[in-house]
């Protein structure tokens, strides 16, 4: 901490230093957020396009030709570009929006501010982390424009499909760029995560013990550890795939004849790739989810004007979920022919996750009980998160059960499950975070009424899109189908498909409200006061105008945990962490 005192706060920064190659965590957070939002717009737009196809497979939409060129000739979507859109949609949503966009934004913004640090441990590495992410985004977007189309083997890029350009057009240059982009992404994410871990461990201000950390920080901290442990495994999986694709090795390939050509590869195993992929892939869903849960804890507690219920249980459940997330990856592979006993083990570990998850859900609900709820847009999105977390979590009990997974694996039941529990929950958490910390980011307020409209349209359409998909799964409809008209047995799903697509298009367009609110408010919004939500955490003790080093004078000292809301015997319904414990105050053990 002392080393940071040496910072020269009055050093004049050039435009480039301040806005482009910034080393200030607050600026880097905004860069992550805006890049993530742009990627999000692309990802959501793609989902609207393929929803057009799924609902009206035999109609022609001139817009498809405009946007997709030869892949949408005559306004009809090509099956290959359908798969490519689904693949890039999934990749962008999972990695670019909900990993980099979510963690990158809020870990960067909040870790130094909430633990009382002048900046990240290494501003330079932090800057590199953003620029690797930026480069990775550029490569991913460029891959959309190559001759044979972008990667199309699904966001899970299972070989041999992803390894053999003969197997599908997207497995040519598009796939190479996908791998390059993801490698850059992994570097970005590791640089970021190491920084977060070191910062949380070393740069906490005086009095900020681990048990006084806000739950946001706990979530970001554990998320970073998950990333450091799992992303390298994805990197090795990608590396071996690159070898198989370009240097003739056979890690994942054996006994293959494709497009009439017999390949010489022998001895490899495609299933090996799946083990490596899901060793990252499952922790990845918690890398997405935990920050959203952390944000929700903070937002719910602040706006319920109540301490988060069961702080220790909340920390414990984050740790339990994180630990378990490393030993459940096999639930994605129940029907790969794996040893049935191994399947049993994965069923057991997977269903165990329900316990800490249930604890979290109950604790959120109890935090609301007898609160004095301030229903801000952020609070509504957090309540929405709890709702989707429960709905989506419950169907996990089915998919985690190997016997039941046999019949719904890879169907729309899965699409419904993971969108609700991971996609919606995390997106809602991200929206909650933006609405809540916008005043901290831009010194201005977002427009409340637009926030309400945005929440309700999003919440209703989100359920409208994903809830009915459960029934399509129970009808046996496989995912990643370009159309389901090849099977008369699915003809009765036509109406559901149309309904889902209408919800999807309305919900997608409604995001314009948010985008508008965001940029309009960033420039013209009403000026925010220093602590607009009457919150306890340290970020609200910094000046509204951003300064390098965060606090003009000394870094404040912390005397209590972050959740003394509505504490009896206090005059206000909040007691900032910087307020010393009073003599006659009831000791709370924090």
């Amino acid at each position: 901490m002392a080393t940071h005192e040496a910072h020269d706060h009055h050093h004049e920064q050039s435009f480039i230093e301040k806005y482009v190659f910034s080393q200030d965590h607050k600026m880097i957070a905004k860069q992550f957020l805006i890049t993530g939002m742009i990627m999000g717009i692309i990802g959501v737009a793609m989902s609207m396009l393929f929803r057009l196809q799924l609902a009206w497979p035999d109609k022609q939409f001139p817009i498809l030709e405009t946007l997709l060129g030869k892949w949408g000739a005559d306004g009809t979507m090509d099956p290959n570009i359908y798969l490519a859109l689904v693949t890039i949609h999934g990749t962008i949503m999972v990695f670019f929006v909900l990993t980099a966009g979510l963690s990158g934004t809020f870990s960067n913004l909040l870790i130094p501010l909430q633990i009382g640090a002048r900046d990240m441990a290494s501003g330079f590495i932090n800057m590199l982390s953003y620029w690797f992410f930026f480069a990775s985004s550029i490569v991913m977007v460029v891959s959309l424009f190559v001759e044979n189309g972008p990667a199309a083997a699904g966001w899970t890029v299972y070989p041999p499909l992803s390894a053999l350009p003969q197997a599908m057009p997207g497995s040519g240059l598009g796939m190479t760029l996908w791998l390059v982009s993801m490698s850059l992404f992994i570097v970005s994410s590791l640089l970021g995560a190491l920084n977060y871990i070191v910062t949380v461990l070393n740069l906490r201000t005086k009095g900020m013990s681990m048990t006084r950390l806000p739950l946001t920080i706990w979530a970001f901290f554990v998320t970073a550890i998950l990333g450091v442990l799992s992303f390298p495994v994805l990197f090795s999986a990608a590396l071996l795939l690159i070898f198989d694709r370009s240097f003739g090795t056979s890690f994942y390939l054996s006994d293959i004849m494709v497009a009439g050509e017999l390949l010489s590869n022998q001895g490899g195993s495609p299933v090996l790739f799946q083990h490596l992929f899901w060793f990252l892939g499952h922790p990845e869903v918690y890398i997405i989810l935990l920050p959203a849960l952390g944000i929700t804890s903070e937002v719910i507690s602040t706006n319920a004007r109540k301490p988060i219920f069961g702080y220790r249980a909340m920390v414990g459940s984050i740790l339990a979920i994180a630990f378990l997330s490393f030993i459940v990856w096999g639930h994605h592979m129940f029907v790969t022919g794996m040893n049935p006993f191994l399947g049993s083990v994965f069923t057991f570990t997977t269903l165990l996750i329900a316990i800490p998850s249930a604890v979290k859900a109950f604790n959120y609900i109890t935090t609301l009980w007898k609160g004095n709820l301030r229903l801000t847009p952020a609070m509504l999105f957090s309540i929405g998160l709890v709702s989707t977390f429960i709905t989506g979590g419950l169907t996990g009990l089915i998919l985690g059960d190997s016997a039941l997974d046999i019949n719904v694996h890879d169907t729309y039941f899965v699409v419904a499950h993971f969108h609700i529990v991971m996609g919606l929950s995390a997106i809602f958490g991200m929206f909650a975070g933006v609405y809540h910390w916008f005043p901290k980011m831009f010194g201005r307020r977002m427009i409340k009424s637009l926030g309400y409209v945005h929440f309700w349209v999003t919440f209703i359409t989100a359920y409208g899109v994903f809830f009915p998909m459960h029934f399509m799964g129970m009808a046996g409809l496989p995912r990643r189908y370009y159309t389901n008209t090849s099977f008369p047995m699915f003809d009765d799903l036509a109406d559901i498909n149309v309904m889902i697509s209408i919800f999807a298009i309305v919900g997608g367009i409604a995001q314009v409200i948010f985008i508008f609110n965001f940029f309009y408010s960033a420039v013209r919004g009403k000026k925010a006061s220093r602590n607009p939500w009457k919150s306890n955490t340290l970020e609200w003790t910094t000046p509204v105008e951003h300064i390098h080093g965060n606090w003009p004078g000394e870094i404040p000292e912390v005397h209590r945990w972050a959740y003394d809301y509505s504490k009896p015997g206090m005059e206000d319904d909040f007691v900032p962490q910087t307020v010393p414990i009073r003599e006659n105050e009831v000791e709370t053990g924090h």
Partner: protein
Amino acid sequence: METLLIIIVGILGLIAIAQAVRVFELSAAVKGEDASSENVTDKDNRNQGILLLIFMIFMLGGFIAMIFGYSDVMLPVSASEHGVDIDNLWDISMWLIIVVFFITQPILFYFGYKFRGAKKKKAVYMEHNNRLEFIWTIVPAVVLAGLIIYGLATWSNIMNPVIGEGEEEPMVVEIYAKQFGWTARYSGSDNQLGYANVRMIGGTNTLGVDPDDANSLDDVITTELHLPVNRPVLFKFRSQDVIHSAYLPHFRVQMNCVPGTKTQFMFKPTMTTEEMRQDPDTQQKVANINEIRGERGDEAWQFDYVLLCNKICGSAHYNMQMKIVVESEEEYNKWMSEQKSFAELL
């Protein structure tokens, strides 16, 4: 042209929102409300609380409506022996989920409404409650223990079937996948599949079956899958190019086909195609579908079992299917006698 239109509409939309916001603010200012801060007022809390309540009612109502409204689209009864066990486990899990859903969601939204804030209210300070937390850790744990035990027993019965004393050996059939079609290879009278490998593919030998292996000669290769009812069958899966997944939803069967390895699944079909066509749920479903097809001018459909591909495998993944016929022993034998053996094929 169209792009231009879209851009114009987009810009107009943004302007409209901006104007709406201005009107909102002006009207708030006229009413003397605190429009200067974007802070949440008591009135906001009331409105949003009521909306939460209304949403809850619509959500739960919609959920119930879907359960009834969509009961027809779901798969009919299981046509296999183990499928009945899966369906039991499914029903139990589903009921559990629905009960928890219908308890927690209303509580969540009701609390959102009931405890909506107001200036003069104050929240109750409550940090934790060990007894409560203990209860809601233990109760899910116990319930889950039950689910896990039941689930694992079912799984183990399905995946490690035991062939008892005096019971019939399962009939061995290979399911062969390639972009974008399925082929079946019956093991013939010896019930042994001949050795096969992609390296031996050539000419009419499209599955790469080894002609020098004595077990190969009586193998029978077909493009439709016929199965005798009530006779256990052991599927062996192979793929020629990429991963596919053999999905037989009516039998609750699924297994990936992985190039370079063999996978397997054993089960017993218990209902013939004809019996399934007579099932009331199936008839209802078929009637609904034919009504829709009629409106579209498509020919009427008759129910058939089908094998679908359920692992992304390329452009025609969505149309990789094989018809399955389950029939009586005699009908099956008759059909089989009309097929050519591998030896005849060569």
